[in-house]
């Protein structure tokens, strides 16, 4: 017969799940997961914007070079990007070892920027050509027409996709486990190793936490999608 489930282990370690060993050690758990995701989100928003704009550049060499970089990153697993950062960052910093948090944030930023650039590209392509033509014929410089006319409209349409990408990002922070960052998944394995006999309860609970966070944002993205569609209809 299967041993029964005993969820008291969750209750006993609740603070550990939320904040790691803080205040006796570095902050961890859910708070660290959200911190990693937010910092990487902000950085990869700008990274994605820059890469996306380079992807729609009228200069052929720039466009192809950027597309090659973006598709290379999209073609390899995130785990590979994390390992690359793990070995490259210390080399780039002249032999100083990079803090693990930075390694993960750098990897997540590079990885997600590539995906964000696709969203930006699609958003810009979704704006009718007439808008650019009108902007140019009123005498705006090409970059002015992009910054003042195209992007404000395109960015609004991209918001739901950005939120979806953020959900992927929250899920992807779990890979920080591999370089020893004590975010939620890492904390869960620690607790599981310490208490020995409750892996089922612990990993189910952790999955539920991720689910609650991600589902909230997925719902937000759906709500935004209907709302933005409604505003566009007027």
């Amino acid at each position, binding site marked *: 017969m299967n041993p029964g*489930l005993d969820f008291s282990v969750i209750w006993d370690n609740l603070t550990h799940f939320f904040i790691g060993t803080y205040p006796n050690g570095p902050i961890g758990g859910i708070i660290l997961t959200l911190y990693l995701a937010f910092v990487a989100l902000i950085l990869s928003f700008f990274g994605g914007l820059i890469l996306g704009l380079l992807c729609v550049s009228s200069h052929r060499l720039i466009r192809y070079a950027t597309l090659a970089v973006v598709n290379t990153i999209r073609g390899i697993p995130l785990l*590979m990007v994390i390992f690359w950062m793990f070995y490259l960052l210390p080399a780039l910093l002249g032999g100083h070892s990079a803090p693990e948090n930075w390694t993960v944030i750098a990897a997540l930023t590079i990885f997600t920027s590539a995906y964000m650039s696709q969203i930006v590209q699609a958003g810009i392509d979704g704006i009718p050509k007439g808008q650019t033509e009108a902007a140019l014929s009123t005498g705006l410089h090409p970059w002015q027409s992009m910054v003042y006319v195209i992007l404000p409209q395109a960015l609004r349409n991209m918001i739901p996709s950005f939120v979806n990408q953020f959900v992927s990002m929250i*899920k*992807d*922070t779990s890979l920080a486990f591999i370089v020893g960052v004590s975010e939620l998944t890492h904390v869960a394995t620690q607790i599981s190793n310490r208490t020995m006999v409750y892996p089922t309860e612990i*990993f*189910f609970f952790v999955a539920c936490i991720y*689910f609650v966070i991600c589902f909230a944002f997925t719902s937000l993205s759906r709500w935004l999608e209907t709302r933005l569609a409604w505003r566009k209809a007027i």
Partner: protein
Amino acid sequence: MFNYQFDWAVVTSGQYAQWLLAGMKVTIELSVVAIVGSFILGLIIAVMRMSNVKPILWFAHAYLEFFRNTPLLVQIFFWYFGSYKILPKVVNDWLNTTNFEFSAAVIALTIYTSAFIAEDIRSGVRAIPKEQMEVAQSSGFSYLRSMYYIILPQAVRLTIPPLINQFLNLAKNSSLAMTIGVAELTYQARQVESYTFKGFEAFTAATLVYLILSIVITWMVTLYNKQVLNPLGVR
């Protein structure tokens, strides 16, 4: 970094090249087994998701939302470390006779990917005019039979490009199986790194394999779109 001695021979010949090749084989095995499983499971979930029976619909909805909104790594850990408490004894005993790391990775990848495939199939089905379903049912087919004989054959044809893309995602996601000790490509690259300290070479080799895989798969999708879905090049 700049006094690093590159030694590409480490990964192009000899024992370590063999390791990487073995890893590539496991990655492909894992992806093929899981894509077949998740296609079947995804098909079932997609049909359940479109059912008129409320409890079935709710179950499929919960399944999709739950597995799409939890990290794959946590799911892999759940099946690898925690599944023994919720599976029947017969299943546990059988799983222990197999290579359990590999089986747990297959289960996790299959269930995770099936949720995405179910959504792809569902949007394929929604592209089929609903009159097809009405006609099928009015000529005496039951719901399941009209799905099976009329709707799904057409929908699956539209679903093949996203399905091939899911295979690519699966191949990339299978790298997470290294965390439970499945000796796939990323795992082997890391092994080579820790035996030889030639991390750049090992990870370059693994990166190239993943890239070649993704280029081939992207090319297959383009070819399929051109040759099968739109042979006349109609825009």
